[in-house]
């Protein structure tokens, strides 16, 4: 845990590998039944949807920007040094004035450093929005990527920067196992992996477990839409020493409540109980680590 953070201000990330397994469902219902004030970070910045369920009355937004070069045509002599340095084709100069492609720029600032004539200055370019709101005991931080922007990790880091150091946090990760997920998982204390009992779910769970190992993160599994055929999944979890923290049945009622934009844990008491138990288990795992893969 990061040094500045208070004891018990744990950060629990919810990820999956495969998309559509129920990360958001688990993150939201866990937050609702956490038993104490909690922060929920919606790090799925390409399609944030936690607030569809929380409906915070007021979200306070502010911009996330990245520095992008601008060319002074009077000073640029077309030497091409900027384009030679840039690995992302964010700036190109072929004997004429340098051309900037902000959507390809990664904001490293290298071009402005190598420019011999001082023709490049850096200016903030909007890449997303962060909004903070409150719904009951849940403090929501939502990141939203600007349309047309493909640089996800800086927006996720901006979401994490808004997390308070004295309140526990649940981070709702994007699907997959690439950079945006890694950006979400950094500085987390525990990883909840949500899977469904399909061959695809198991395949991608293995990738996510490999990622957790790489990052040295202890993790446990939530099985969603658990049906009859769980043998393969269970034997994999056993072999990897992964605790199964919760098994949610394939219940039509869950789908109905969720499609109305309501929380299962609040609408159906038996599921409220299950998510309370999940919160208790996670707090136990965090204070008595034993589930390290």
């Amino acid at each position, binding site marked *: 845990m990061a040094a500045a953070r208070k004891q018990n201000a744990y950060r629990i990330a919810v990820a999956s590998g495969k998309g559509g397994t129920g990360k958001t469902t688990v993150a939201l219902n866990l937050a609702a039944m956490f038993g104490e004030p909690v922060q929920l970070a919606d790090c799925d910045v390409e399609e944030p949807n936690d607030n569809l369920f929380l409906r915070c009355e007021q979200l306070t937004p502010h911009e996330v920007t990245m520095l992008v070069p601008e060319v002074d045509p009077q000073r640029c002599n077309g030497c091409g040094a900027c384009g030679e340095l840039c690995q992302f084709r964010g700036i*190109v100069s072929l004997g004429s004035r340098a051309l900037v*492609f902000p959507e*390809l720029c990664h904001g490293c600032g290298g071009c402005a450093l190598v420019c011999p004539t001082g023709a490049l200055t850096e200016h903030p370019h909007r890449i997303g929005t962060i909004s903070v709101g409150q719904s009951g005991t849940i403090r929501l931080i939502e990141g939203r990527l600007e349309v047309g922007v493909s640089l996800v990790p800086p927006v996720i880091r901006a979401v994490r920067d808004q997390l308070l150091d004295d309140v526990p946090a649940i981070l709702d990760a994007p699907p997959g196992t690439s950079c945006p997920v890694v950006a979400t998982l950094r500085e987390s204390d525990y990883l909840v992996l949500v899977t469904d009992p399909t061959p695809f779910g198991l395949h991608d769970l293995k990738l996510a477990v490999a990622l957790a190992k790489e990052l040295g993160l202890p993790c446990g599994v939530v099985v969603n839409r658990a049906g009859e055929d769980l043998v393969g999944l269970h034997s994999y979890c056993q072999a990897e020493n992964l605790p199964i923290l919760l098994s949610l049945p394939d219940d039509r009622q869950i789908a109905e409540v969720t499609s109305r934009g309501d929380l299962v844990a609040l609408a159906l008491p038996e599921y409220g109980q299950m998510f309370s138990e999940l919160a208790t288990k996670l707090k136990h795992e965090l204070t008595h680590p034993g589930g390290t893969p």
Partner: protein
Amino acid sequence: MNKIAFTTAGQELSAALDPRFGRAARFLIYDLQSKSVQIIENQQGRNAAQGAGIQAAETVVKAGVDTLVTGHCGPKAFKVLAAAGVQVFNCNAATVDEALHELLVGRLPAAENSDVEGHW
């Protein structure tokens, strides 16, 4: 018009014209004065994670080309080519020599803008 670049997957004038620019396999450069053919690989453009069109534009500009004949050209590539003074001609001919013929008889109008969105 002096040196013309064609996008192609082949090696000679009879080869197919590649409708893609940024991710074309290679460029056939035809020199109008000497009537000679030169092949330039588009390895960097094909393998680029992003900005393939910009990379391909750089490659043809550095080859000293003043004209490009291809199927389609996206906005970023077009911007780089225009800044470097390369004229772009969109063409749906099947082969490079058919495209060359259409260009020389004046049947191809010079593109004034990109004709497709990025990543078409």
